């Protein structure tokens, strides 16, 4: 393992070196960096040209400039060097501070989009594989093809123009007519009926139940003015936590008498987690990242402990599920607190909570939850836009690889020896279907970063995309190279993680 990582690091180093060299030369040759100044006819033309020539080292040939850039980057790696600038841009400002302020928002966007697209894509892909040739399968296939064919910036602009404005207007005055309410309920019912499928009777029942449930929920939320002052409360955390605990246990352990203890310990984990949330109440207002991590670890730890204590002979499985329940409770706690922060953010954004420009509200001056809610709301639309494309490819790949696995002989054997369908799918098929996906995620990461360049431009984020675009327009290589350095390193690291994940998921593969 260590040998593998070391060898990969060496190879990766040379790959990054080669790709930066290639990009440096291409960027430097992509245009004339003095174009604007040559067209400029005002006073001090010669001095400006001379200054620009000095700033960009234009009197040195391109390969020499690349070596100079490498030296600037090298100073950042050498310990103790405090003249780390990553080179100067055309205005003789160091690139590093610009990169530091840009990288955060871009990585937030990319990671949020990748994680969400992966979760949704894998779930949808598995459901479509299990319901092959059903209405749902055809619907998702059509949507995936549509997503593949959408120009990213076109979708982003549409989202910005229609979704953001309409949603903001609705949130300012959250009311629905009975007809609209009924319409939403019927659509929700239809979607669930198509997703769950089955015989006509089942479909009708699912349709009725989910339509009524949607209608009631929305009605209650609207009449209690929930959309203006959203809240969940401890009771909400407890109830949703218990339901999720039941679902996780049913999915990963089954509800047979043999694994009944897993269910009980999962429910206990949800209850205990809620108690910890209640106890941590006084901490919430002055929360920082450190105390958030500490509270989260305690909740997850309590969940694992509940599994270990109550798990009986299936201790290991119960502990894993307890940990999962703990994570669920942490997420619920964060959502609850952010919902509580909503009225503040709503006021500070002047009643337009879904922003269309920028990556954060300037001078928000809120506490931990308010700041994070603000960041999340800013992420909403750009993430949605980037997600569409990755979501489509994850769905297709998961479906294909799941179908491939389901047709394997060992799955037939598993069914033949009488294992129930849940075990066959969750334990025998799902894990193996994930293997090819590991490579795809790493491969897709570079694509998502490229998508971020486009989306950031549409939504006016001052992230790495803007840095890249502005640098390339002015033929100013150092900011562009900072972008490439980050993407190249990220891609290489992700590829390595994918290979390690590969070996973890497929024991036949040895890292050597």
């Amino acid at each position, binding site marked *: 393992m260590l040998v593998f990582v070391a060898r990969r690091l060496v190879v990766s180093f040379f790959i990054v070196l080669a790709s930066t060299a290639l990009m440096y030369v291409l960027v430097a040759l992509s245009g004339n960096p003095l174009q604007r100044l040559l067209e400029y006819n005002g006073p001090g033309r010669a001095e400006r040209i001379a200054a620009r020539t000095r700033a960009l080292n234009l009197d040195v040939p391109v390969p020499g400039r690349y070596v100079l850039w490498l030296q600037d980057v090298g100073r950042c790696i050498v310990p103790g060097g405090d003249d780390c600038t990553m080179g100067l841009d055309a205005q003789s400002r160091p690139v590093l501070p610009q990169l530091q302020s840009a990288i955060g928002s871009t990585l937030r966007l990319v990671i949020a989009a990748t994680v969400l697209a992966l979760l949704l894509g894998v779930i949808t892909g598995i459901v479509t594989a299990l319901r092959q040739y059903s209405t749902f399968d055809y619907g998702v296939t059509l949507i995936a*093809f549509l997503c593949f064919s959408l*120009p990213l910036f076109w979708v982003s602009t549409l989202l910005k123009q229609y979704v953001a404005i309409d949603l903001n207007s609705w949130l300012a005055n959250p009311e629905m007519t009975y007809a609209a309410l009924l319409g939403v309920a019927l659509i929700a019912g239809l979607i669930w009926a198509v997703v769950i499928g089955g015989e006509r009777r089942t479909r009708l029942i699912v349709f009725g139940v989910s339509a009524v449930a949607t209608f009631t929920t929305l009605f209650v939320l609207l009449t209690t003015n929930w959309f203006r002052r959203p809240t969940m409360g401890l009771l909400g955390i407890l109830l949703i936590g218990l339901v999720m605990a039941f679902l996780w246990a049913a999915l990963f352990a089954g509800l047979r008498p043999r694994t009944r203890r897993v269910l009980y310990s999962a429910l206990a984990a949800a209850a205990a987690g809620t108690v910890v949330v209640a106890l941590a109440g006084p901490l919430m207002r002055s929360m920082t990242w450190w105390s958030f991590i500490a509270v989260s670890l305690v909740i997850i730890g309590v969940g694992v402990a509940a599994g270990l204590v109550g798990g009986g002979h299936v201790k290991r499985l119960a502990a894993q599920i307890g940990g999962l329940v703990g994570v669920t409770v942490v997420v619920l706690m964060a959502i609850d607190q952010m919902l509580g922060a909503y009225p503040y953010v709503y006021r500070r954004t002047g009643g337009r909570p879904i922003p269309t420009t920028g990556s954060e509200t300037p001078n928000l001056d809120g506490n931990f939850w308010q700041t994070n809610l603000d960041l999340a709301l800013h992420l909403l639309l750009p993430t949605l836009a980037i997600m569409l494309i990755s979501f489509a490819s994850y769905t297709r790949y998961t479906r294909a690889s799941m179908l*491939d696995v389901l047709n394997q002989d060992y799955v037939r054997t598993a069914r033949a020896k009488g294992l129930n369908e849940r075990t066959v799918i969750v334990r025998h098929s799902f894990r193996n279907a994930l293997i090819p996906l590991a490579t795809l995620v790493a491969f897709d990461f570079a694509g998502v970063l*490229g998508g971020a360049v486009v989306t950031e431009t549409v939504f006016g984020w001052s992230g790495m995309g803007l840095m890249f675009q502005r640098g390339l327009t002015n033929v100013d290589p150092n900011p562009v190279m900072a972008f490439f350095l980050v993407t190249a390193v990220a891609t290489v690291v992700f590829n390595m993680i994918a290979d390690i994940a590969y070996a973890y998921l497929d024991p036949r593969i040895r890292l050597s």
Partner: protein
Amino acid sequence: MTDQRPSSEGHERIEAQMERLVATDTDVLEVEPAATAIPVAARSSARTIVNRFVRHRAAMGGLVALVLIVLLVFSSIGIGPIPGWWPLDYRVPQAILNGGKPTLQLWPFSLGAHPFGQDNIGRDYFALVMAGAQQSIIIAFLVGVIGSAIGTVIGALAGYFRGWTESVLMRITDVIITIPLVAIAAVVAKGANGRGGVWLLGLFLGFVTWTGLARIVRGEFLSLREKEFVDAARSVGVPSGRIIFRHILPNTIGVIIVSATLAMSSAILLESALSFLGFGVQPPNTSLGQLINNYRSAMGPRPWLFWWPGLFIVAIALAVNFIGDGLRDAFDPRQNRQKA
């Protein structure tokens, strides 16, 4: 080595026999007749592929849609000096009628004076969109063809020769893969725009979009080169170039065609993204992406300026994607036989 090789004539004869053997070898995907001039068995396989494609409803729908779009785009405003049936020039502003709103009516069908409306200075938007679509289609086609050709050759050489050739070529591929496609494409497109027009842009973009196919073709070659028919060809002294291009390559044609098709649809999207970032097609040339970008600020008062080029991009990309899917199923029917 050279003196042990059979005479050219004998060599041809042995090779023809070899290929007849290949044609009956059910292990291998059989070959298109035009490529290798194989008798009976292969021709029927080509026909099977065509039949499978024709039966694929979505793919045929995509093909019909694409043909209609291409006909519309190229016949309406004509190609270069040849005039089309649409009378208005996309460069000349007209008097603005009715705020420049689209006059297209679906029922009863009538085009009206300006079916897609007019832009803010009164140019006919139908003609503009047609001109933009022409450029976009040309670029997509060029990128698809050039990218696939380079990818095929590099993948074939790497997979066939192994050893240091493979290491070098695959490391080059790895290097290019670490760079986001939009970013590297933006850089080369900026370089192309400083030097020439749309054709050069297509050419340059082709130089950076071959990496995926190179990996796929290499994979195919790695398995095919171990097959008996390649061993046999090598043992009777067929030169490497001929083995690669006449013996192995026809067996990978399915993968290549599918990938080239899909490359064209992503090239349309790539071109539009680049135009949006300001590195794509430059004025006075126009393209669908450039049109959207030009009129992005006019979205509020004149939404049709934003909608029409976008719809054309989506329609073309969707049609090509469906065709690609149909081709994949036609060449590799294994996926279809699966029943969960």
